């Protein structure tokens, strides 16, 4: 392009119209009705879709954390232990597994998860959490000398 004066330079909008539009149409190729074929409609929906995709990458992470929390909560509720006490008990015993791992263990390795619940319950009983005053009925945690019972 040749810019003979300044206003033309300001008005010049990058690449040729055809290529500029083709970029958008390529992204809109799978839309339905006029959003696919009419540029003014297509660019609107493409912009919205890209913005959603950008936000969605963050939202996916949040969704996953929520899902893991739900799973861990369900996992420890089946042993009659609330989630907060479970997490607190594990943290005080220096078991630093994260939510994702706990949820994974609860589903795929239920026996290991059971062991974690027992440890947590034991710690809760020893430290005297408000909810849990008594040690569990089905108590088979070994290596309790670590917990400094006496």
């Amino acid at each position, binding site marked *: 392009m040749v810019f003979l004066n300044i206003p033309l330079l300001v008005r010049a909008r990058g690449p040729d119209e055809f290529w500029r539009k083709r970029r958008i149409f390529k*992204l809109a*190729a*799978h839309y339905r009705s006029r959003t696919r074929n009419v540029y003014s409609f297509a660019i609107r929906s493409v912009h919205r879709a890209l913005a959603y995709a950008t936000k969605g990458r963050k939202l996916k992470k949040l969704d996953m954390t929520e899902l893991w929390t739900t799973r861990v909560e369900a*996992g420890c509720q*089946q*042993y009659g232990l609330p989630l907060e006490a479970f997490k607190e008990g594990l943290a005080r015993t220096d078991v630093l597994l994260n939510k994702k791992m706990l949820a994974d263990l*609860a*589903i*795929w*390795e*239920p*026996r*290991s998860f059971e062991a974690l619940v027992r440890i947590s319950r034991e710690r809760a009983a020893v430290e005297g959490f408000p909810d849990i005053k008594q040690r569990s009925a089905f108590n088979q945690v070994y290596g309790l000398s670590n917990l400094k019972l006496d």
Partner: protein
Amino acid sequence: MSNSHLFLKSGFPRAPLQNGLGRYVCQLQRITLKFCKNNGSSRGMRDFIENHLVDFAKENPGIVVYVKPRRHRTPVLVGEYLNGEREWLSCRNSTQDEISKWIDLLKTQNGSSSSLRLRKMWHTDVPSIQGPWTPFMLRSPDALSQKYPSSEASKPLDAPTTATEKLIELFKQQKLEDEADISKKHAK
């Protein structure tokens, strides 16, 4: 009709041919460098070929290197992989360092990576070792021998106590305490 899968395919992490289980096999087999001998856009490519290409070829004896001068064309890198994929990269106006980085990328990957969106960041053939959780895992086996309809099983698990029941309990407690007091007095 949705064709969204045509634009960017999604998939799961896989390694070709059980790579890495016994030993690691480099997946890049051939690399082709095309450039122009006098065009400015392939200047970086020419520098790379002069300075680093021989070293690269010596370090990686398993990779075949082709150098093709192409008159008045932009410089191009093409890698061909063991699984038959090929990756094409344009190196127009890129410097020597950039080209050596791109070549490094071609060397370290298993196939063309730009065309696949990964849905998971892990892959396992054996998801569970102790057996996955089932709804029956902690259930009592009494449920098997139970006859339905049963009044016990159809009660809600978390039925709250009504106010009347609480009052009755309080009354009973009071009665007990009173009796205890009376018996104490008698003992005295």
